[in-house]
């Protein structure tokens, strides 16, 4: 009995201790998102009172969400993958050409997307983990390669007219009990696209993976300290390799979701998506030095980032530069907060 209470007590202590670093960053992110959204609802009113506005954010950023989750995994192991944006673009183009010109069907196009993502993940993971190259350089080469391949596959925009796929794109899943009355007085239920459901499934799966599986805990161990993880008997190389493979797979899925949303392939798709993914992960509380991060944080990072963009556009500052500047400022603030927290943590030691 006494042992039991002891264990309980230590558990509580642990919880309180862990609140200082990982969870604090997560709480800040969630708070920022909620405050921002409430402010938008109170002051902007226009669309933000409608539930559909929130689901639109999800609809537009389903692909970014998946990309950021993959990025979070790699960043937790202490690496980085900057090729995901261009891989997305390549997946869109390859699938579009596959559907339009080569007479493929939806199922094979999904396989193609996953295959491209996996291929990038495996090659880059091998080079990073087993050949010990710097992840930045390897994935930079991957970025170049994907960018070039996209234009080699086709250099123009390819709109998709393949009937079953277009149907899939247009599918709207209505949300029960949420909706709004439009100008004509007709009740319009809120909806999400198919991609959002897939993205949320990916988020839940990766969340569980990081939280409750051995592999997930290994990611944290490797990112926290390479050498001690090695001494604990963790296969560091394999873990890093798997992180990159998962990230590649996420890029494949994210690419297909982007394709679903855009319904076309173009070399200009998903420009700079990798930076958005990195930014969302950082805002979500993932440290670039590795070892700290959370998929739930990433989810809120993506939401905060896209809410900012939404607010900026609805403020009437339609020039694209304001979005970028606000995102930059926000990134700056979050980085400073992170650095202060880290410094405090080091001082305590």
């Amino acid at each position: 009995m006494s042992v039991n209470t002891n264990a309980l007590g230590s558990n509580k202590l642990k919880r309180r201790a862990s609140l200082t670093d990982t969870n604090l960053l997560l709480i800040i992110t969630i708070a920022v998102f909620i405050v921002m959204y409430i402010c938008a609802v109170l002051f902007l009113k226009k669309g933000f009172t409608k539930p559909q506005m929130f689901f639109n954010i999800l609809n537009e950023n389903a692909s970014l969400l998946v990309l950021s989750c993959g990025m979070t995994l790699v960043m937790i192991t202490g690496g980085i993958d900057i090729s995901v944006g261009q891989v997305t673009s390549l997946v869109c183009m390859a699938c579009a050409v596959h559907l339009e010109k080569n007479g493929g069907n939806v199922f094979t196009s999904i396989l193609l997307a996953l295959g491209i993502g996996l291929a990038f993940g495996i090659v880059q993971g091998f080079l990073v983990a087993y050949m010990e190259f710097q992840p930045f350089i390897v994935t930079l080469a991957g970025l170049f390669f994907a960018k070039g391949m996209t234009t080699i596959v086709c250099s123009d925009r390819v709109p998709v007219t393949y009937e079953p796929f277009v149907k899939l794109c247009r599918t709207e899943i209505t949300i029960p009990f949420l909706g709004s009355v439009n100008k004509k007085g007709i009740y319009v239920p809120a909806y999400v696209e198919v991609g959002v459901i897939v993205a949320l499934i990916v988020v839940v799966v990766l969340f569980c993976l990081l939280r409750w599986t051995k592999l997930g805990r290994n990611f944290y161990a490797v990112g926290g300290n390479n050498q001690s993880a090695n001494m604990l008997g963790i296969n560091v190389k394999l873990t890093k390799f798997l992180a990159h493979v998962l990230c590649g797979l996420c890029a494949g899925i994210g690419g297909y979701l982007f394709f679903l949303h855009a319904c076309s392939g173009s070399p200009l798709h998903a420009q700079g998506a990798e930076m958005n993914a990195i930014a969302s992960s950082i805002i979500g509380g993932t440290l670039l030095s590795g070892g700290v991060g959370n998929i739930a944080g990433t989810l809120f990072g993506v939401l905060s980032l896209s809410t900012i963009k939404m607010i900026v556009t609805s403020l009437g500052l339609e020039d694209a530069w304001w979005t970028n500047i606000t995102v930059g400022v926000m990134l700056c603030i979050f980085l400073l907060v992170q650095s202060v927290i880290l410094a405090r943590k080091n001082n305590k030691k």
Partner: protein
Amino acid sequence: MTTDTKVQSKGSAGEFFGKIIRNQLFIPIVALTLLVIFNLISDPGFFKIALEPSSTGNLILSGNLITIIDNASELVILAIGMTLVTSASGGQDISVGATIAIAGSTVLRIVKGYAPDIPGSQFAGMIIVSFLLCVVVSALFGAFNGALVAFFKIQPMVATLILFTAGRSIAAWINNNDNISINDKRFGYFGNFIPGIPVPTPVFITIFCIIVIALVLKFTNLRLYSQSVGINASSSRLNGINPKMIKLLTFVILGVCVAVCGFIKVSRTSSITYSVIANNIEMDAILAVALGGNNLGGGKFNLTSSVLGAYVIQFLTTTLYKFKEIDSSSISAYKAVVVILLIIISSPFVRKLIEDFKNKREAAKAEAAVGKEKA
């Protein structure tokens, strides 16, 4: 006796080759040679240089080689600053392209206010003022990056991510997103040709920059300090170096390099496109540093090999452009393949493999010799 000397000479030759292979300049020079040979085979006229009258009637040098050296100017200047930053902070600045846009925008903001036919002295004054302002602005942005890296201990790539996202927008904001084009021909002198001189002006600017940085490295402790900070920041602090200030300084120097690049860039076209100017140049600059065999994790550096690396990258780009069937935007795929090959060849992993292989062979030889003696 004779066999003895033979063995010795062979050993020294092996040592000599080993020294060459271990030299940092080895990889960029080999890459350059390969490119030259490839071009000579595919197109013997590739290196032809001609003195031809340009569209304005002045005699200018033209030819692929001149184009390469001319277009590489910005990359070389950037590579200098990037090498210093890499050395001191162990990371790279990915915001240089965006900061070039800011610098160029600043220059145009000043120059656009003047009438196209002001007298020479006034024009010179205006150019100097605009250049100085652009140097100050870029140095400030460099200092911003440097402060984040040095004082807040944020990884350089992440700290510069801020300007990478916001930089081009700031550049557009400086000029209210106007499309500016300068009609004064004299403004284009700095990016093209000065009448009467057949060599493009950016080449002179590059040479000037290289000389300045060489003098700085020769007569100051910058090289020693930045290397020691890059290798071990805390122990160099204990030895009386202020690592924070050194890191900040390297970022400011990179900012000045960026200002020069921005000035050349806008002068080349007398106009600016905010989203396209110096696109992807940060990647090329980092690759130049990596190709030069510098450790991207900080520490020792060799500026000569970085500069050579920059020329190799530009050479590669121009060579790829020569193939008519290659689309200009798909060039990056081919570049990626070449870069991956170069990195694999230059990686410590492969070198270790080669050395292991050598050692094993020698060991086998020695064993065989021992076996023979016993027999």
